């Protein structure tokens, strides 16, 4: 069975050959294929090669069909390992998934960050994300009071 290949070009000039069926998990790419403007490869000005590699890895894994059946449980385990990344890479993945319009990857990446926030106190959150506390003491007291229910 012949599978049509597409060339994706990262912002830093690297080219990646990918099966069309795998690549069109990205709605952005799917639209370009429909509009038939993929002959010379698709330039992705907003995606670096380091990130594009991860995106392609994800799309390949999620290209599930009869020849390649995977259980949901296995996918979840794979997702966890896949997302074991540095913060900067995770944020770049969110941006890439948003730009390329890959819903399941977007959900996964956003949920990963949400899980990093879940269950933490404000101080722990600040330390995790290196966020500056720019409240004045009065503001801090006021916001704590109005959200006291979240600590009870």
């Amino acid at each position, binding site marked *: 069975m012949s599978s049509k290949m597409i060339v994706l070009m990262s912002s830093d000039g690297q080219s990646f050959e990918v099966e069309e069926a795998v690549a069109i998990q990205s709605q952005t790419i799917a639209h370009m294929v429909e509009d038939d403007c993929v002959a010379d490869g698709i330039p992705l000005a907003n995606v670096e090669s380091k990130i594009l590699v991860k995106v392609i890895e994800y799309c390949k894994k999620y290209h599930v069909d009869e020849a390649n059946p995977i259980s949901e449980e296995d996918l979840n385990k794979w997702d966890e390992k896949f997302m074991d990344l540095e913060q900067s890479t995770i944020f770049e993945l969110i941006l890439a998934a948003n730009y390329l319009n890959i819903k399941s990857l977007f959900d996964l990446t956003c949920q990963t960050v*949400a899980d990093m926030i879940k269950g933490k106190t404000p101080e722990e959150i600040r330390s995790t994300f290196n966020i500056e506390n720019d409240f004045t003491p009065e503001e801090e007291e006021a916001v704590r009071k109005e*959200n006291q*229910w979240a600590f009870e």
Partner: protein
Amino acid sequence: MIGDALTIPSELESALRLRTVQYFITKRPWLDLYGVHVRPVPPFGSTSRKPHFDPALIHRCLPDELLFEVFARMMPYDLGRASCVCRKWRYTVRNPMFWRNACLKAWQTAGVIENYKILQSKYDGSWRKMWLLRSRVRTDGLYVSRNTYIRAGIAEWKITNPVHIVCYYRYIRFYPSGRFLYKNSSQKLKDVAKYMNFKASKSENLYKGTYTLSMSDDKIEAAVLYPGTRPTVLRIRLRLRGTAIGANNRMDLLSLVTSGVNDEEISSTEEDILGLVEGWEDDETHNPDIPAVSHKRGMTAFVFVPFEEVDESVLNLPPEKMDYYVTG
């Protein structure tokens, strides 16, 4: 000096009618600032903000709408805590979308239209106000009522008056769909929490029931079926309150009544036990062999414990180690 400025020439009299006359009177409000340290913080959202390097990678990488998407995947309690992190997060969390989704999920049994009506009539159109002020059962943990009684031990070998403090717990887990699980046992919280779900086996002595939360106040009506050869219904009335506005982490047990039901009623009822017994009198029973009994013991108030705190909770301590537990 000020005296001179106040004598306004006649040609300016017409200007007196305009507020602008203030400019002709010397005022120096900045003099009040001398000696007071004022932090040069521009108001949030001001475009005149100096280019300030935000040390947080997450803010440098993600535009606001993507930060919003991350927050949209968090639970309300995490949002409340996230509010306290920094000004940007406080501002983002204020978005009514989050609170609308949280409210519609929490009060889903009322239905979307009814909830919108209540939003307008009682909470000035503010979903956040509804979240804070309206009574709500928490579904992210268990409500636990700890009861103790003293049992006389058997006097052996002249040990004088041995007594045992017996500790038993009532556990309730609510679901937003209107169902709940009930268990009465001496098992500790951290053990019970593991299997308190609908997938648990029947041998765990877990009972299912249905409940309703009143639209207008803080009362809960709930009913549990004890199946078997002499089926009994346990009717529970509770009142929700909290240690902080919106906390909803305490429930008072107002009444506990067991009554008999007859077999025909059960087979036609399926799941909605409450629907079956709603409207029954307090002393009503549908099985003359099982009289209606209103229980007066073991009525300690319920305390809410979120799932992530189940293992460390003080409720796991044996009676001797627990201080007099004030339910607040």
